[in-house]
């Protein structure tokens, strides 16, 4: 009978839904039913609500705070100011970058929207009313929003708390608004290469300030149980374990008495890595009152006060031979960090991994220097859907390549291909000290150019330029090219840590007697689909169906310690830990199977979902049978149970790469654009779930579109945020989003257990230069070299205008 036919090997593989399966996201059932559980869904008995009084000024002295009218309002419990936090030494807090930040204004405010007082009330409405009743007297001070002006000798001193300190955690400070100078590479050799070069291109490339703007804003619910001494904190945390450790160090509560839970998170994109005053205030308020305290910011607060991204002024020089062989690259960055240095980077890297700026190219010598500067803007500098400062680096090199192509009078695709690191050069040691693990750039590039018919596009563009000059059209055609190389998966503990915590990650697996499992990880999904993909990794390792594996993250009482999810590190690090823990399970399973089959364990081989006696395929034990035996049989020399834990310290980063082409129509009279085609080839090594990869690429490209074409945090000259609502801060809808064509090559990472590299951030890293290069390219025939993003309508119009295209 057919029913009795054992499944074929292919059928067994398919049933696992393991690596390579476009398995539907298991998370989506609850999300599409509105059954997600976010921080703002958490309601605890007796819970109080907090709201902030925020500074309307970008720089001012706080003369007095009068909370009497607020306290007189029925339902107001307390109004906290810096004076109340000072006895606890919590009026300031350490930042992830080794600086410190005011929790509540201590004598002065340094950016618009800064937290001044925390109002605690019986409900959210009363809290908002009371916040309006707190009277704060300010004395305005001169405002500095330009990092270059901040470094002028007579610039006002912003951080009086650092007065007289001529060095910080990252070395010497040469000015009272200077934070650090960080350098990499060989300065003299680079200067020598550039000064003796046949061709040099020089340009200032600005990557403007923007914001990750996750749909769910930041928030927390803190609950101090004064009876058992245990503090529970629910919050929008991309790194819950780190939050627990920091909370313990700050509060003095022993770490075992703190439980941090990240429930469902509605997007993070780096915005939820840092520690915010709201978290601290909700915790302190709960400790003081003994009641749970909720704080959830609104959209304007999120855009104005929580971590921004980018704001890098990158002055570059690139040199080459006449025939287009790159000989050197130099960059000096003026980095606007805002009022406090709260960048979320590995502690030893104050400019993140910006020194990946040699990109996909074999550049013999390079140098980079980054000056961090204080200004009257919100703190932050997070990696918005990218590894640490990698999108800035990718944008820089991909713009410099274009500028060099103009200088050389050469096709930009040809210039790239001429300088790519060749396949046989991997592992490749870059001039700035990285070891690229694997890559095959030429193959990807050729595939991309062929897919879009690059030569045909260039012919069409040339015809369009002629038609434009004849007055037959007012639309130009831009072809935006990018070949990016990322560096993700931080990272090796020997050089990557956050506040001393090595950046390993972890997975703990328990196999249940009936052959299903739960795995817990030190990471936390914010929409990436970990519950789906990590189960797939495990399914392929241990031979149980992904449908029978629960993935759990985000509760520090149950999950093993990990450094969290950002910088595309989950798959490279926690994914590796998952595979390694799975292999430990399989090793023990092999011993159990050997006992059950009465053979030596060396006589067994693994086959999809079972151990088979070599040469006797009819003699096997499935993982399901082995799991049952692990709990119900006394096996000599083998402990009962089937569990494993792995902490994975990656030997290297991973280096995903990709080739993107954007074809854009630009109306020179209105500054509007239309994206006619976007082709994205990604190589993220081994592909775990192609459907999720495609979704990640679509999402990342759309955020890249936003950044390149309009999204910014803009300030006026007195430090007012001009883009504090979604009316002015560009968040694309389906209407503005073009169709994307995705493609791939697959070059596994040689050092990762399953060869995976990470993909969530690639499309943002590669997408921004692709969109921006398309705008630039449209105007190349009319003499454009460089204009700054975002390329919104009036700026594109101005470019056309300045080039004389309006007659």
């Amino acid at each position, binding site marked *: 009978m057919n029913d009795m036919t054992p499944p074929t090997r292919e059928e067994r593989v398919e049933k696992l839904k393991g690596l390579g399966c476009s398995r539907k996201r298991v998370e989506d059932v609850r999300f599409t039913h509105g059954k997600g559980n976010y921080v703002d869904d958490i309601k605890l008995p007796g819970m109080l609500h907090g709201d902030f009084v925020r500074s309307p000024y970008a720089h001012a002295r706080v003369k007095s705070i009068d909370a009497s009218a607020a306290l007189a309002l029925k339902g107001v419990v307390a109004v906290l100011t810096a004076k109340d936090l000072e006895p606890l030494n919590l009026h300031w807090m350490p930042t992830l970058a080794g600086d410190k930040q005011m929790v509540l204004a201590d004598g002065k405010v340094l950016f618009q929207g800064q937290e001044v007082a925390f109002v605690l009330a019986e409900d*959210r*409405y009363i809290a*908002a*009313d009371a916040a*309006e009743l707190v009277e704060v007297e300010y004395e305005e001070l001169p405002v500095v929003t330009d990092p270059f002006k901040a470094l002028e000798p007579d610039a006002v001193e912003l951080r009086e708390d650092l007065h007289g300190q001529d060095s910080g955690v990252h070395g010497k400070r040469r000015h009272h608004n200077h934070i650090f100078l960080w350098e990499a590479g060989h300065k003299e050799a680079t200067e020598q290469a550039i000064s003796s070069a046949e061709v040099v291109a020089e340009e200032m490339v600005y990557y403007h300030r923007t914001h990750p703007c996750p749909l769910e804003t930041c928030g927390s619910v803190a609950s101090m149980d004064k009876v058992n001494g245990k503090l529970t904190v629910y919050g929008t945390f991309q790194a819950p374990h780190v939050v627990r450790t920091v909370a313990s160090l700050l509060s003095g509560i022993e770490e075992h008495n703190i439980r941090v839970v990240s429930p469902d998170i509605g997007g993070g994109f780096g915005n939820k890595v840092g520690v915010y005053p709201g978290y601290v205030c909700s915790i302190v308020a709960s400790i003081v009152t003994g009641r749970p305290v909720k704080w959830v910011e*609104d*959209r*304007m607060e999120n855009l104005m006060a929580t971590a921004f991204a980018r704001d890098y002024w990158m002055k570059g020089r690139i040199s080459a031979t006449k025939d287009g062989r790159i000989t050197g690259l130099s960059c000096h960055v003026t980095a606007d960090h805002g009022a406090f240095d709260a960048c979320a980077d590995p502690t030893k890297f104050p400019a993140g991994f910006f020194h990946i700026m040699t990109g996909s190219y074999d550049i013999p010598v390079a140098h980079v220097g980054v000056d961090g500067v204080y200004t009257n803007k919100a703190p932050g500098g997070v990696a918005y859907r990218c590894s640490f400062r990698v999108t800035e680096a990718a944008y820089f090199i991909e713009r410099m390549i274009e500028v060099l192509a103009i200088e050389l009078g050469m096709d930009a695709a040809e210039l790239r291909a001429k300088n790519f690191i060749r396949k046989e050069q991997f592992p490749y040691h870059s001039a700035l000290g990285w070891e690229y693990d694997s890559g095959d750039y030429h193959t990807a590039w050729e595939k991309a150019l062929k897919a879009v018919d690059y030569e045909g596009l260039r012919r069409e563009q040339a015809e369009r330029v002629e038609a434009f000059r004849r007055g037959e059209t007012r639309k130009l055609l831009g072809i935006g090219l990018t070949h990016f190389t990322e560096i993700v998966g931080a990272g090796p503990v020997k050089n990557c840590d956050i506040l001393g915590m090595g950046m390993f990650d972890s997975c703990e697996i328990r196999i249940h007697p009936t052959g299903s499992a739960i795995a817990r990880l030190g990471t936390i999904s914010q929409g990436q689909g970990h519950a789906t993909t990590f189960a797939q990794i495990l399914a392929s390792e241990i031979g149980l169906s992904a449908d029978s594996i629960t993935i759990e993250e985000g509760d520090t009482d149950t999950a093993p310690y990990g450094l969290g999810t950002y910088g595309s590190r989950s798959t490279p690090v926690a994914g590796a830990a998952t595979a390694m823990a799975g292999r430990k399970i399989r090793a023990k399973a092999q011993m159990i199977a050997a006992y059950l089959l009465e053979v030596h364990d060396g006589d067994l081989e693994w086959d999809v979902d079972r151990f088979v006696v070599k040469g006797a395929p009819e003699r096997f034990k499935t993982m399901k049978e082995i799991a049952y035996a692990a709990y119900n049989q006394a096996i000599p020399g083998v402990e009962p149970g089937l569990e494993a834990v792995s902490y994975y310290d990656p030997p290297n980063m991973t280096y995903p790469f990709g080739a993107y082409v954007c074809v854009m129509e630009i109306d020179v*009279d*209105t*500054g*509007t654009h239309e994206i006619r085609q976007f082709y994205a080839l990604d190589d993220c090594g081994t592909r775990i779930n192609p459907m999720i990869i495609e979704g990640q690429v679509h999402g990342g490209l759309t955020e890249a579109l936003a950044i390149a074409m*309009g999204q910014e945090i*803009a300030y006026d000259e007195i430090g007012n945020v*001009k*883009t504090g609502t*979604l*009316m*002015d801060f*560009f968040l*694309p*809808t389906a*209407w*503005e989003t073009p169709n994307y064509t995705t493609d791939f090559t697959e070059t596994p990472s040689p050092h990762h257990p399953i060869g995976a590299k990470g993909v969530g951030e690639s499309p943002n890293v590669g997408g921004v230069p692709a969109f921006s290069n398309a705008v630039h390219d449209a105007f190349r025939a009319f003499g454009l070299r460089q204009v700054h993003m975002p390329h*919104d*309508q*009036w700026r594109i*119009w*101005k470019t056309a*205008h300045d080039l004389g295209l*309006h007659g």
Partner: protein
Amino acid sequence: MIPASFEYHRPTNLEAALATLKEFGDDARVLAGGHSLIPMMKLRMAAVEHLVDLQAIADLKGIAIDGGTVRIGAMTTQHELIAHQGLAQAAPIIREAALQIADPQVRYMGTVGGNVANGDPGNDMPGLMQCLDATYTLAGPDGTREVKARAFYEAAYMTAREDDEILTAIGFEATGGGWAYEKQKRKIGDYATAAAAVILQKDGGVCSGASIAMTNLADTPVWAAEAGEALVGTACEPDAVGRAVEAMLARIEPTEDNRGPVEFKRHVAGVILRRAIERAWSRA
């Protein structure tokens, strides 16, 4: 984003709504679709102690077409304007404009009365109603009166409506001829960088009537009689269109904002108007 405390009123007839307005005077505001007032209240830029919601007043809803005369109840939503077949025949420019307002969610809630009565220079319907030469019906404690859309707008958020009056209906004559509503915006949900409403009549290859208004280029909508006059008697050839554009540009007074500087807005206004005239003429 939490408004200050307010009292909520939901009258079921116009008389009750007017009585509530009279009782609370300056402290009361009527609520139509809520897409301007509620955000302002949440931002605490508008403090309203008594909010008078008009949703339950059935008489304020609906579209009536009687011969060549169109009458639209103030509480008719943008979605209802789009869906109404008779209106699409009588004044197709309304459907074209309404489809360019925000997104479907907003259009299910936003009303034509709220849009025209608020006096927000960014709203699309005021300019459109001036183009249509519409008449607004205002009900007050002493009965009703009618005001021309072209005489209604005084300054940003300042209109001919008294505080104790409610705008109840909009009336105009069916248009005929060619039409176009052309709008440039940064994204879905945005107000216009520049928008133009154009209606042209054509008689024997010659323009016999023209009405032109623009939106969000001054603190009120701009209907320019001289822009229309520049087209009448011509075949809307490029020179004539150029004169119409020049006449309109002489009337607008855009200001700089995040959409761009004045120079850009003036340029775009000209481009948008030119395109609107060309499209309307092609349909005339």
